[in-house]
């Protein structure tokens, strides 16, 4: 077996909060600090005190002793909460920032895609930006020229090639930018959360393209909040938590472990943090039991109340908000839109913070773990899924199917809609084709 294509060993990254994180120091402050340090050094010599940390600085370890390796042709997902160190890891792998400790060996040509459309210039035309962006991502001019038609076709912007991109719609802009990136041919591709932009159809196309890249035997490192995408694309995943490697293994089990991790699960409360401004932003989601308690754990016969808070940033129409109940491997079971019931909401939604509730009946979900996903759609059929899914669990308590005691809860399809079952009655005396078991 050949050596791994990426070997990460003991990588740590320390940010000095107070110096490095404060972007702009003034020269005066710096000189004052140097002078203070010099005088305290002098004082130290006299008093023989130990070396203090320079004034007011604290170390923040964004990554702490992380090691893993990736084999050639493998797609590895990196998951974790915001601030867990995923992006820092990718920045170190892309050589944008150096590690404080540790060592990485890379055996191949690397391209990193930390953002869609890096280097795009609004004044330049689509055609010019393809060359600019291609060069920024590491393609040679000859390479770009060769793939130019393919890129333009993928982006579907043929008609606007000679228009400055500042006049593009955001959809066109993202399509063109991703099209360039999708035609990179590195041996190692580092991708950060770029699929969070664009509409669902285009996201699907991009994922498909990346899947092809993986099939061609290239190595992918994929950072994402979108567990569905990670599972589809990656065989293996690592889970970073507060700068440390919490778990690694096959992506299905890692994603599941992450989604249903301890506190996430029991609290039944989920706060959303959106980095970008959207017209509609989700703030909070809670799952509530019939007693009015916020919890993530439900009896099988209890209805589950979803309480969802969102913010509308300006008066809008034509938007629908969707709640999607999914299985633990993110397959959708069913969904409901608020406009399904309140059709007037399609015409107008007023700006402000709102809360709405929907109730899933008891006795429908089988005991097991589930995920709820929130989304928003518009009348053009564009749909946006919030990447954060929130989990809840249904226990066997109160489960109406007695048979699970013998056969477990696994069989019989994804849901357990109660059916009326009547007691068997004899048809004829000698009808013993089905050999039953005598119950005590």
């Amino acid at each position, binding site marked *: 077996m050949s050596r791994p294509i990426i070997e990460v060993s003991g990588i740590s990254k320390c*940010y000095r909060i107070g110096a*490095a994180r404060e*972007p*702009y*120091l*003034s*020269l*005066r402050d*710096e000189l004052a600090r140097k002078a203070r340090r010099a005088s305290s050094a002098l004082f130290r010599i006299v008093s023989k005190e130990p070396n203090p940390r320079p004034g007011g600085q604290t170390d923040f370890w964004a990554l702490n002793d992380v090691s893993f390796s990736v084999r050639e042709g493998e797609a590895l997902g990196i998951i974790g909460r915001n601030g867990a160190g995923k992006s820092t890891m990718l*920045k*170190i*792998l*892309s*050589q*944008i*920032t*150096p*590690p*404080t*400790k*540790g*060592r*990485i*060996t*890379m*055996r*191949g*040509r690397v391209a*990193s895609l*930390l*953002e869609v459309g*890096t*280097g795009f*210039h609004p*004044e*330049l035309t689509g055609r*010019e930006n393809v*060359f*600019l962006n291609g*060069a*920024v*991502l*590491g*393609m*040679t*001019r000859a390479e770009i020229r060769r793939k130019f038609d393919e890129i333009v076709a993928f982006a579907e912007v043929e008609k606007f090639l000679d228009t400055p991109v500042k006049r593009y719609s955001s959809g066109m802009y993202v399509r063109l930018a991703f099209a360039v990136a999708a035609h990179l041919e590195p041996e190692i591709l580092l991708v950060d959360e770029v699929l969070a932009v664009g509409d669902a159809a285009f996201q699907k196309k991009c994922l498909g393209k990346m899947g092809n890249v993986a099939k061609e035997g290239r190595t992918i490192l994929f950072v994402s909040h979108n567990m569905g995408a990670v599972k589809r694309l990656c065989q293996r995943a690592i889970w970073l938590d507060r700068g440390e490697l919490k778990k690694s293994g096959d992506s299905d089990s890692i994603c599941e472990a992450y989604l249903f991790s301890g506190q996430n699960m029991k609290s039944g409360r989920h706060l959303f943090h959106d980095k970008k401004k959207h017209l509609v932003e989700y703030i909070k989601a809670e799952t509530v039991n019939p007693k009015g308690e916020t919890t993530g754990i439900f009896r099988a016969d209890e209805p589950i109340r979803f309480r969802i808070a969102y913010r509308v940033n300006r008066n809008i129409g034509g938007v629908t908000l969707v709640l999607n109940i999914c299985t633990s491997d993110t397959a959708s079971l069913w969904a409901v839109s608020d406009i399904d019931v309140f059709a007037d909401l399609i015409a107008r939604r007023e700006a402000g913070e709102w809360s709405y509730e929907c109730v899933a009946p008891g006795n429908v979900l089988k005991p097991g773990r589930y995920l709820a996903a929130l989304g928003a759609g518009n009348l053009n059929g564009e749909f946006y899924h919030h990447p954060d899914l929130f989990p809840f669990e249904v226990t066997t308590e109160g489960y109406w199917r007695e048979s699970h005691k013998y056969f477990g809860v696994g069989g019989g399809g994804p849901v357990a809609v109660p059916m009326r079952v009547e007691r068997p009655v004899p048809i004829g005396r000698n009808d013993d084709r089905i050999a039953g078991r005598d119950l005590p």
Partner: protein
Amino acid sequence: MEFVIAPPRRWLSVDWRELWRYRDLFLVLAWRDVAVRYKQTALGIAWAVFQPFVTMIVFTLIFNRMANITSGDGTPYPIFLYLGLLFWQYYSGTLTNASNSMISNASLIQKVYFPRLIVPATAATTGLIDLAISAIILVGMMIYYGVMPQWVGVLILPALLGCAVLSALGMGLLMASLNIKYQDVRFALPFFIQSILYVTPVIYPVKMLDNHPVVKNLMLWLNPISGVITNARAGLLGQGTVDFGVLGISLLMSMVYFACGLYYFRSTERYFADIV
């Protein structure tokens, strides 16, 4: 291809082979800067000519007609001044653009790896294009005034340009690194550049300082552009002789500036993405 990412060591040499691999990016960024600069303007590329030309007219009126400063060797003052202005504008423009280049390309620096040196180097290159365009006017003026360049002047032209590029880029690298850390640079730089204009023989001949040898020598030693302009005038405008001693000093000092700038830039560049 195998490479290692590890914490940076103190002494870093420049990886010229890597720079060569990234030549396409360098060219594309240089092209972008030129393309974008004149994109939304009515005059377009003519701005490159317009600026030094108008400056020449204004300065001739003020310094030659009103303050009676002359070239000192019979060369018509406008052409004497214009040649000085060409090099001066290259120097000050490159210094300004290189200093701001890391900030204006912050979005690139935070998202993609490439040798950071490319960014200020781009600024030094686009300046050369402006210089070439505004030199057309110089040729026109040489024909108008009937000035013939000496062959020596044409031969040393690459050395003169080399000096200008190295000294401007050297100082630019230093300023670019400082600019990332200290906002003061942004305020100090225009003032600084304006001040050097007066200690550079752009509007007056270096001969005016013959009675102050210390000042004259300091100017020629510390400010390579002084030597460049003096020798360019001697060589290209036909009066006086090229001083190879001064040319040597200018070359040496440009290299010193470049080496210092490069060293400081290299020792800080790896943390740019964290600070910008």
